[in-house]
């Protein structure tokens, strides 16, 4: 059921309804999404809602088109990206991702403590070693004596980590299938238990956390390598 963005009869922009991004595009809360259909929808709606094309309307309509098109852009930006889309859906489902937790970040920063990061257990040793190597490279760079062998080793590990990220994305997409199946059953009128819902959510949270951890690590590595 799509939100009503403009009047069917006269085509004028309507006040934006407080809907979530999926509803805005008339999409079910499923994670597999036809991105090219989304793009097409995005452009079509832009032509109708953009302030530039509503510039001659009265003040109220201009205000609505500003609100509508910012909602459109925010929704498009979020749903287009697979990770953002997943995170958004989880947020709609009431999950507060550890990674995202602003309160945790604020607390950590104000107390000077390191924020609790979920290190995937199987990676503990690897991460420990990599962090040591990064520290060493940082020191070397300060002195102006980078060791090319070290740089190569770190580069290789970065490459492996990036590959891991890809694997985790695919794992996430497998989880999507399960989630979508569940939603479909719901739509068909079959009941879905709260327990099942929670389990599917938790599995996705787990994959996301692991992947986000690696993403952050890759970012840290890139920063040291490039500077």
């Amino acid at each position, binding site marked *: 059921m799509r939100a009503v963005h403009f009047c069917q009869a006269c085509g004028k922009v309507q006040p934006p309804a407080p809907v979530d991004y999926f509803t805005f595009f008339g999409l079910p809360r499923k994670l597999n999404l036809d991105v090219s259909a989304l793009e097409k929808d995005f452009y079509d709606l832009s032509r109708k809602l953009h302030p530039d094309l509503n510039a001659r309307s009265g003040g109220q309509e201009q205000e609505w088109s500003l609100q509508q098109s*910012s909602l459109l852009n925010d929704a498009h*930006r979020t749903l287009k990206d697979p990770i953002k889309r997943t995170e958004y859906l989880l947020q709609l489902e009431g999950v507060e991702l550890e990674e995202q937790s602003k309160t945790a970040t604020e607390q950590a920063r104000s107390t*000077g403590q390191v924020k609790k990061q979920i290190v995937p257990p199987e990676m503990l040793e690897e991460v420990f070693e990599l962090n040591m190597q990064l520290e060493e490279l940082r020191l070397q760079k300060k002195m102006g004596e980078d060791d090319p062998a070290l740089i190569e080793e770190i580069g290789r590990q970065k490459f492996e980590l990036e590959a891991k990220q890809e694997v985790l994305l695919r794992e996430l997409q497998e989880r999507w299938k399960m989630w979508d199946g569940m939603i479909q059953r719901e739509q068909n009128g079959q009941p879905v238990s709260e327990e099942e819902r929670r389990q599917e959510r938790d599995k996705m949270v787990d994959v996301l956390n692991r992947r986000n951890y690696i993403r952050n690590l890759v970012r840290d590595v890139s920063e040291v390598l490039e500077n």
Partner: protein
Amino acid sequence: MAPDRIVGIDLGTTNSLVAFMQGESPVVIPGDDGSNLVPSVVALDEKNQPVIGNAARKYLTETPERAVYSIKRLMGRGVDDVQEELRFFPFRLAEDLQAGEVLRIKLGEKTFTPPEISALILRQLKRNAERFFGAPVTKAVITVPAYFNDAQRQATKDAGRIAGLDVLRLVNEPTAASLAYGLDKKQNGIVAVYDLGGGTFDISILRLHDGIFEVISTNGDTHLGGDDIDNLLITIALDDTLGDLGLDLRRNAEVVQAIRNAVIEAKIALSSQPSVKLDVALPDGNRYLREITRAQFEQLIQPIIDRTVGPCKQALKDAGLKPEQIDEVVLVGGSTRIPKVRALVKERFRREPHTDLNPDEVVALGAAVQANILGGGSEATENMLLLDVTPLSLGIEVAGGVTDKIILRNSTIPASATQFYTTQVDGQANVAIHVLQGERELAKDCRSLARFDLKGIPPMAAGMARIEVKFLIDANGILHVSAREQRSGKESEIQVQPSYGLTDEQVESMILDSFDSAEEDFRQRQVIEARNEAATILAALDKGKKSAAWGHLTTDEKKKIAKMEKALIAVKAEDDYQAIRKAIDALNQGTTRLAELMMDSAVSTVLKGKTMDEADMGEGPTAPHPMAKAEFE
């Protein structure tokens, strides 16, 4: 008759232009000197009247303390961060500036804020357009560098308001250029716009498809342009004279300006000549003579133009594209005429840049296209839509002096983000928010936009209040903030202290100063111009009466002409410019046959409704002259 005429304005560092959409294509509206470019130079004459454009340039060398150029460099900036500019530009700051106050500069004995100076330039452009249309112009689209931050954009909008213009939209310069390009080419593809102007550099990457101009990424440097090349050459000249003649000319404003003029001419000449000779008269009768070859020039400017490489790389990276994937590179800005710049672009993007469009005019033309779209569009623009992005990430300062990014750079605008705040202390009534723009981690390294004070939070226990704050970046790239305490549903009052801008009250007071007279000014100018045109046509008629063709007219025709002539002479003495125009038209009609009969083509041109002055407009648009009413839409 066309409805509200919305014009497109390029408010440039070095030159400004105004343009509008004429039928299928945009055209630049010339000034009364026939020139398409209005130099962004403002001066005060002996009577403290503002002089703008070409007429103001002589003041730069004769009485430099009464003139200013490149004011765009100071728009939306504070005293602290213009220290760098002050080293190279003769901006004279007002003596009584307080910390935290908006910048003011001195022109003669008066002081002005940068938006007020820009407003004088905008008003000149407004007048040029009004003279052209023979009707008031109150709405405009104004361009800004894509990399301009919120304060710089707000300052530009303020300038428009002070000039009596309703600024319907601020458009990013590279995006505007792409509109002019896209209108011309009508092709889909990925376009990079490389815009190196007098003071700013922008690189934007866009996807053009089915009339949609979608910016994918943008980057730039708001302190990089042709001015920096000029300053480098000026510094060399000053060092030379110090070294060779022991003369320190740094304080001699007139000579520095003379040197500046000379190096600008030399710079331009070197784009087409292999070498050039600088020749400047010095105060004590000496002359500064120096030959510069193109090779030397290129070596000198290499570090400056190399500064464009970083932003280009970042823009490509943010777009997720390789240079090979770019279909076309469009060059914008006078500085892109430099062969070395073109070579750099060719090398970086692995293709010949597109140079068909006039780099000086393309931004104004694009602004005119956008103006047309906003005005409802026409056949040429009916499918066109601009989707632009915000160039800088928007962040909030959080505990520890860190920036929490809430809207990332290159997000399509309008864009928004919602944040929730609560209170620390029982009964706390206010919450302070510090908003920043930039990519750095620490708040102190980002650009402070404003401090918002959320007031009127209903009294509650600490941590109970749930204040929803919505940050919205509009289509102009300007931030709006609204807040609501969710439990009570009460809208919080937001008090904004812009870090570098004018408050609404300040802008209001500036408008009243220049606007009161604007209406009257306009009317008076119309009267003067109508009278001038009447005088010209009457003089031409006198000539016509003495010509052989006069004898060929019937008595009746002669009587009619005499009657209209008398009517025009009568109404000319009065103040109603519309009545004068009507009488001119009537006389025009009445003398058509006379004009046809006359052998003297110069005079017959006049009698057909153009004045001698306007007939010589040079490279003006083909648009109808106000007098030739029959050709108006």
